């Protein structure tokens, strides 16, 4: 089985587990289909391509359509690549469900595209404190000083200023899997995830699970949710 799955953000709610209220994001993950397989001898690495979502046949490019026809699945909207769990192989056309990939108490990294906020000033974008609202001030939410004088005579690179904010790919690390509901292809993940409702998310088994703090977190989360 792959080490991750593609899903759709449905929204947030709270559930009660072991006497505690837990905030969760509801994600409809899968069912995904194996579209392609990457092998060591052919491509130099082991991975699997998963497809998710539905797409109309008339909107699918013909070369893609022939790939889908060959492996016998309906055209999919999104294709992403995942590493495989050790010692496992998959065939093209095979179905991948969320309960085969994750179990309760696992840690997952969720990647999504954050909400676009357009051209945003520094108070929202970089958490600047701004200036007083009253007491004779006529300068409220603007940037303030952005540098010195003759020395250095320019603005430093990476100076935090106003600009385009949001609509970027963001990954949150180490979210706990609170519950999995196989019959609805739903996974409940603790906390919030990037992006708006109905946006596409990639869930991968967490990279922090091997770190010292991640191991502690994994232990705690297994004790809580299993």
């Amino acid at each position, binding site marked *: 089985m792959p080490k991750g799955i593609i899903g759709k953000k449905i*929204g947030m*709610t*709270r559930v*009660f587990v072991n006497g505690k209220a837990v905030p969760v994001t*509801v994600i409809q993950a899968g069912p995904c289909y194996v579209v392609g397989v990457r092998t060591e001898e052919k491509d130099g690495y082991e991975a699997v391509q998963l497809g998710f979502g539905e797409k109309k046949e008339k909107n699918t490019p013909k070369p893609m359509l022939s790939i889908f026809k060959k492996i016998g699945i309906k055209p999919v909207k999104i294709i992403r690549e995942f590493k495989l769990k050790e010692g496992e192989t998959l065939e093209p056309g095979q179905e991948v469900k969320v309960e085969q990939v994750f179990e309760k108490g696992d840690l997952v990294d969720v990647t999504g595209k954050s909400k676009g906020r357009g051209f945003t000033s520094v108070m929202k974008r970089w958490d600047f404190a701004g200036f007083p609202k009253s007491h004779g001030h006529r300068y409220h939410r603007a940037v303030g000083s952005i540098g010195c004088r003759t020395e250095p005579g320019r603005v430093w690179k990476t100076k935090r200023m106003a600009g385009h904010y949001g609509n970027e790919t963001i990954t949150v690390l180490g979210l706990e899997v609170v519950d999995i509901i196989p019959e*609805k292809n739903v996974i409940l993940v603790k906390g919030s995830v990037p992006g708006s*409702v109905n946006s596409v998310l990639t869930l991968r088994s967490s990279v922090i699970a091997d770190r010292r703090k991640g191991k502690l977190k994994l232990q705690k989360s297994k004790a809580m949710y299993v």
Partner: protein
Amino acid sequence: MHQLIREIEQKYIPQDIPEFRPGDTVRLHLKVKEGEKERTQIFEGLVIRVKGSGLGKTFTVRKVSYGVGMERIFPIACPSIQKIEVVKRGVVRRAKLYYVRNLKGKAAKIRELKEWEIKKRAAESKAATENKNNGQS
């Protein structure tokens, strides 16, 4: 809210909660932890507000103890509630009974439903839930 979230919440809502409304008097059996020990505490009072839906539904219970008004807000699926008993069913004409806070003694009393009224109300709520279920399917 998404239909899917509503369905998922159903799994977490306890099924044995009796139906009650603002104006009813309820008796709550609450789990209280004191150090290592756990015991049951009883909190009885008037339901003055029910708000929200699904798992986010909460209700406020008001009781007057030694002359001091006391209100507690509980989530409908609160894990520390062991049991809810409906003691009295009252007649009120409002959904939120905040006016009770300003009343004392006899004025704060709420008329109880008569036997036939309780039956009528139960039939009405049953019909309402059936309608809702039919609408969903």
